[in-house]
């Protein structure tokens, strides 16, 4: 069975995920730049317990699979490789929508140890959305060959999230990765991700917007991140937020009149 998500099809995908025969204790997203070994990590963790394929009429293919660790069943979702979550392409939008609206229990970013610096852009974008992030520094074997050594404990301290070195093709580091995922998902470890601070003018507007975003979404999304995207004026995100507000049951928004959320959000997004 294949699973795909169109740029706008996040809810269809989430429904598909919840209809899964395997009842998972947690859903974990796998993100990363193209060609960093995400699928190799995915295959290494899930073995043959996975499904991929084409879904008629859809554009982006997502693989999902399962593994067990410490008596918990974990569903992994292999997201498209992207350099960014700013939705410059359908792939980026799918990855972003899943991390933001799919509410995964954790997100693993697979990075290439041979050009780590460039990979950190995506890492910073992900930790800006969710603190429940784990960095897997993959291809350390290749890096070693190029005489590049990555100081993972130091990286862990500066990013404020667990950092696990791996050579996924040789199945090195995968047990440590499962353990790190377990700790983050089941609250055995609380991450304190590095907070990206913008200049004063931007921080002031974020503060202003955040309150309104919190009210409209009742704490559902990371209000700081939503405020930043409103400042970007990203139309795809505004659209997805509107979808969310329109879909929501009235009982889930006791403080808002029907339609007020959509209207309020429209006003908010029109300010920029």
């Amino acid at each position, binding site marked *: 069975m294949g699973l795909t998500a169109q740029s706008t099809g996040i809810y269809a995908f989430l429904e598909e995920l919840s209809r899964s025969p395997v009842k998972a204790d947690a859903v974990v997203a796998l993100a990363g730049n193209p060609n960093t070994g995400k699928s190799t990590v995915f295959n290494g963790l899930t073995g043959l317990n996975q499904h991929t394929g084409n879904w008629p009429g859809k554009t982006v293919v997502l693989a999902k699979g399962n593994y067990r660790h410490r008596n918990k069943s974990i569903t992994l979702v292999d997201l498209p490789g992207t350099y*960014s979550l*700013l939705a*410059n392409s359908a792939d980026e939008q799918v990855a972003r929508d899943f991390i933001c609206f799919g509410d995964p229990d954790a997100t693993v970013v697979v990075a290439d140890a*041979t*050009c*780590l*610096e*460039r990979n950190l*852009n995506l890492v910073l974008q992900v930790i800006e959305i969710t603190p429940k992030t784990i960095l897997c520094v993959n291809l350390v074997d290749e890096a070693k060959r190029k005489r590049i050594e990555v100081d993972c404990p130091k990286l862990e301290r500066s990013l404020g999230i667990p950092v696990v070195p791996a050579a996924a093709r040789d199945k090195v580091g995968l047990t440590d990765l499962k353990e790190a995922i377990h700790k983050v998902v089941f609250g055995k470890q609380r991450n304190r991700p590095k907070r990206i601070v913008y200049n004063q003018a931007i921080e002031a507007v974020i503060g202003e917007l955040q309150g309104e975003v919190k009210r409209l979404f009742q704490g559902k999304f990371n209000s700081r991140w939503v405020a930043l995207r409103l400042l970007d004026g990203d139309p795809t995100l505004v659209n997805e937020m509107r979808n969310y507000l329109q879909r929501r049951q009235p009982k889930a928004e006791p403080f808002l009149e029907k339609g007020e959320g959509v209207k309020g959000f429209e006003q908010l997004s029109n300010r920029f």
Partner: protein
Amino acid sequence: MAVAEFELTQLPIGRMAEVVKVGLTGLARNRLLDLGLVPSTIVEAIRKSPSGDPVAYKIRGAVIALRSEESRHITVRSIN
């Protein structure tokens, strides 16, 4: 002494320069920033395609091809 600033398109193959400014807006700007082209980044021109465009650059450990319509909006300054 003022350091000369010029368009990335003028960087000779084999030379390095430092990014000063990305003079684009919107998605085109996002794309370049996401590739690591933020101010103070060191860029090295690696090689030209047969037609001379695009040119491959080394940026933050990765090789990336840029078309002149993108690279001419990137201001760099020479480094020694």
